[in-house]
């Protein structure tokens, strides 16, 4: 009874995460390949789905706690899944932001060849995928490792920032486009942060240890 409920919870969360992954992929790909339809899909179709999913996951966690009075790890699973689902919903919002900026940029010529943003997107999406894997497998080692990759993402964001600053100071006509690119990189960085949140939740869930709000040097 309780086990079935937990299985259901995990299944729903995985489905939610898969949706969000696709949203990010579509947004970045849409930017790269200038595909307006997929960008619009993210904004109009996918985002409402994430909202609905967050609400239903909340109800699922609440009913699991009310009906089964879970203890120890089972309780941590219920609580953390609720948090993860709200993190996933925020990731969805960030993906929408990326899509919106991408929509603007599809109409315009490139400011510079897209190298770092796709790289950033690749690392970020892998972080999200692996954080969900660590949840499914209850693998706290993987979760810790994913948290470390956040540094890479931060470094990439800083690199993009400094490059674009140089560009903007040289040629003011690139400012609007650069700002959108900055917005995209900022949102990707936030998605990576939220993935580390998920990993911290997984570590709490599996080990009962809280590693939040600590410096990233361990």
């Amino acid at each position: 009874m309780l086990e079935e409920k937990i299985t259901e919870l995990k299944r729903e969360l995985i489905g939610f995460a898969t949706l969000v992954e696709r949203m990010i992929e579509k947004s970045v790909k849409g930017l790269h390949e200038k595909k307006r339809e997929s960008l619009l899909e993210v904004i109009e179709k996918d985002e409402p789905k994430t909202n609905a999913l967050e609400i239903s996951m909340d109800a699922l966690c609440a009913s699991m706690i009310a009906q089964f009075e879970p203890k120890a790890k089972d309780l941590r699973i219920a609580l953390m899944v609720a948090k993860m689902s709200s993190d996933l919903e925020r990731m969805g919002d960030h993906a929408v932001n990326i899509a919106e900026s991408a929509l603007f940029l599809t109409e315009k010529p490139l400011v510079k060849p897209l190298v770092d943003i796709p790289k950033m997107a690749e690392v970020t999406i892998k972080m999200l995928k692996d954080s969900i894997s660590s949840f499914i497998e209850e693998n706290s080692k993987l979760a810790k490792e994913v948290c470390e990759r956040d540094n890479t993402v931060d470094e990439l964001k800083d690199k993009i920032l400094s490059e674009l600053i140089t560009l903007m100071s040289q040629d003011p006509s690139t400012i609007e486009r650069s700002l959108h690119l900055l917005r995209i990189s900022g949102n990707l960085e936030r998605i990576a942060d939220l993935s580390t949140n998920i990993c911290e939740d997984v570590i709490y869930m599996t080990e009962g240890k809280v590693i939040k709000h600590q410096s990233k040097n361990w």
Partner: protein
Amino acid sequence: MESTILTIEDFSAYFGTNQVLNNVNLSVAQKKVTAIMGPSGCGKTTLIRCINRMHELVPAAQVSGRILLHDKNLYSMNPIIVRRKIGMVFQKPNPFPTMSIYDNVIAGYKLNGIRIGKREKDEIVEESLKRAALWGEVKDNLHRKGTFLSGGQQQRLCIARALAMHPEILLLDEPTSALDPKATAHIEELIAELKKQVTIIIVTHNIAQAARISDFTAFIYLGELVEYGTSEKMFTVPKDKRTEEYLTGKFG
């Protein structure tokens, strides 16, 4: 969508002039566990006793309204037939003390004078004890009297006895309130298995138990059906204020 096996329509029950149930309307889903919860004396036991027509055995008992099993009114059927289609397990385990375990299981046939061959009897005994998760523990002692069994085992024997009649619905009247936690857990697991084959209606005053094992829950208070819905919703977002108060321990 679940199909409905039992419909209770505008049903009221009385002991003489004392009204115990007031206008209850309820549809019980087939092959699911429906819990009936409420504080002591609210009428929940009376309700299930009306379903298998045991209520009318008390002098001055009266009922009004209908209870339909697959669209047939139970109150226009022969009560004996009703009780063979709807089995009951009581709060305190009550195996027949003068009979062996074997005879207890087929008591429904034996006492009714229904003749069946030895092979068929053996099959029914084995099948029922297996369904009640008791076979392994008693298969070498079938011809001993049931009194040496523990409380939990006796209760499972009573469940086997009821199941042997192949009822469509099994009524459980606080089946674990006289048992220790381990035996209670056994029976709850058993219920989760049984519901795949039999519709189960369980009366309990233990809110946590109702929440754990039921698919649907009805809350009865002072003879009235206050709320009825899926257990998922009932225990997180009850609709009626009285349900909310009962669940948070304000009374009962």
